[in-house]
């Protein structure tokens, strides 16, 4: 294929040669992108198309498309109360976890960016949650949340406050899961933001200090703008990740109580793995995909303009 293309320019007329030249960059780029494109095609695009295809069917027990139903699966979703609950829970979850997680991580990173003795120790501690798996950490949180012997309720008891049913009260469960999620993702956000902070040119601060600028002024006028590519990155990633949260739900609440923590991805997992309804699971996956896609496009359109690149 490539050889054949190589031969043509010599024989052909001028316009074609220039086309060959024009596309030269694209071809080089293609070579660089080839491994990614190949792998994505096999492991992501192909399953994605299969998912879209299945979303128009009811599947039999073997998970094969069995009955074409057109848009019925989607229609069912739109009218289904539990899917509405799912969407609401997912949006709330994103709202609880993303801003809080990034602000706390930024706060920690700003502290850990100071040049102090033993700061390396704190950096390891702050990023430590990155090293603990969802499975392992959720088990620990399950212990902390335990209604009778859990640490949190024991602390409340100590202060004479009424116990809270952390994971059993529908009003609290989503909050509790969010807390453990923020904790779990903190290490990663911290590490990324710290890396961004360290990339900022020290000279900028020096000249600001000579001008007598306060800490807050420096933070607002130097740190945040210079950090904007990193912040943009971590916000995008956190948003997407939080839409995809699964592990902690599976271990902590299984979507309950009263479906209050039934995030869309968990609902997809339940339909696909436990109930063998690949049709409805696929339809949910497609809806989720479109939602996140729109949100990300919006973010790129609005956000990337504000981001300051060197």
């Amino acid at each position, binding site marked *: 294929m490539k050889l054949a293309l190589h031969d043509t320019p010599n024989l052909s007329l001028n316009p074609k040669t220039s086309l060959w030249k024009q596309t030269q960059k694209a071809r080089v780029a293609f070579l660089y992108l080839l491994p990614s494109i190949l792998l994505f095609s096999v492991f992501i695009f192909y399953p994605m198309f299969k998912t879209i295809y299945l979303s128009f069917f009811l599947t039999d027990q073997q998970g094969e498309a069995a009955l074409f139903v057109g848009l019925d699966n989607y229609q069912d979703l739109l009218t289904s109360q539990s899917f509405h609950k799912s969407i609401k829970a997912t949006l709330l979850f994103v709202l609880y976890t993303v801003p809080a997680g990034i602000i706390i991580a930024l706060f920690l990173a700003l502290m850990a960016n100071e040049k102090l003795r033993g700061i390396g120790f704190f950096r390891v501690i702050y990023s430590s949650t990155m090293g603990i798996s969802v499975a392992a*950490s959720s088990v620990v949180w399950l212990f902390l949340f335990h209604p009778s012997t859990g640490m949190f309720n024991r602390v409340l008891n100590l202060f004479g406050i009424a116990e809270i049913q952390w994971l059993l009260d529908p009003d609290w469960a989503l909050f509790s899961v969010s807390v453990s999620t923020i904790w779990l993702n903190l290490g990663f956000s911290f590490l990324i933001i710290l890396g961004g902070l360290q990339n900022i040119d020290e000279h900028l601060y020096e000249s600001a200090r000579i001008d007598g600028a306060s800490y807050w002024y420096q933070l607002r006028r130097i740190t945040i703008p210079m950090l904007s590519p990193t912040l943009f990155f971590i916000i995008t990633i956190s948003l997407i990740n939080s839409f995809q949260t699964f592990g902690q739900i599976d271990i902590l609440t299984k979507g309950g109580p009263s479906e209050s923590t039934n995030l869309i991805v968990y609902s997809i997992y339940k339909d696909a793995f436990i109930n063998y309804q690949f049709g409805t699971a696929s339809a949910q996956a497609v809806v989720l995909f479109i939602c996140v896609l729109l949100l990300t496009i919006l973010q790129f359109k609005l956000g990337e303009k504000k981001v300051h690149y060197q």
Partner: protein
Amino acid sequence: MNIRNKLLLYLLLFFSAFLLFFPILYAFMISFMSSDEILHGKFFPAAFHLENYLKVFDRLPLLKYLLNSFIVSTSVMIGQLIVCSMAAYAFVFIQFKGRNFIFFLFISTMMIPWEATMIPNFITILKLDWFNTYQGLTFPFFAAAFGTFLLRQNFLTIPKELHEASQIAGLNTVQFFIKVVLPVSKTSLVTLGVYSFLSTWNQYLWPLLVTTNDSVRTVQIGLKQLQTQETATDWGVVMAGVIVVIIPTLLLLFLGQKQLQKGLTQGALK
């Protein structure tokens, strides 16, 4: 910084470190407790018994699991670094038609819920006859939109002048990529390396699906084997397993952290 501020900062640092590390500390404490102590929600074990640790190693081929996890995570890390840096390079330094579109196509792969693609991928692996192999555990993760995105964001901060200068110096794209871009972006490469290593280390559902026996299984599956459903779980043993599993990752974070700092303070370009 004056003494008062410094003290305040240390206080804050310690306080947040304690809060953040508390769950891990708690797991560490539980791993030494007898089931009776755990039941009563004690924080400090009466004595530091090693029984739970002995039981964990007795129950599971934990060292083999650790080795497997290590091989799988390292492979994914190396694979991702190569594949993603190549893609990110194309997105930043080569002007071509449809660049933004393809980039967005890449990014969009992040939004596809992994749980939805898992079954088709599982069948692909089955057809490739990659059951119980390291390939099956690693290949699907070599290309990552996340890694490409991370590196792209970093490559974008490389001054344009550097590119022009290297062209004048007669470097071709491959040379520029390997000799200039990669060394300059060491920090992000380490970040991505640490990230891909840890996220692979922490995977559970996929390794479980594509393996049927212990030959290439990873530690997270081991952890799961310690917990039970209908009968009582021995939490002390589970926590001992948790601790054993997170020690290597904490170690890696520690080393990666040091390297990150060093690379930054000594970096000639900064």
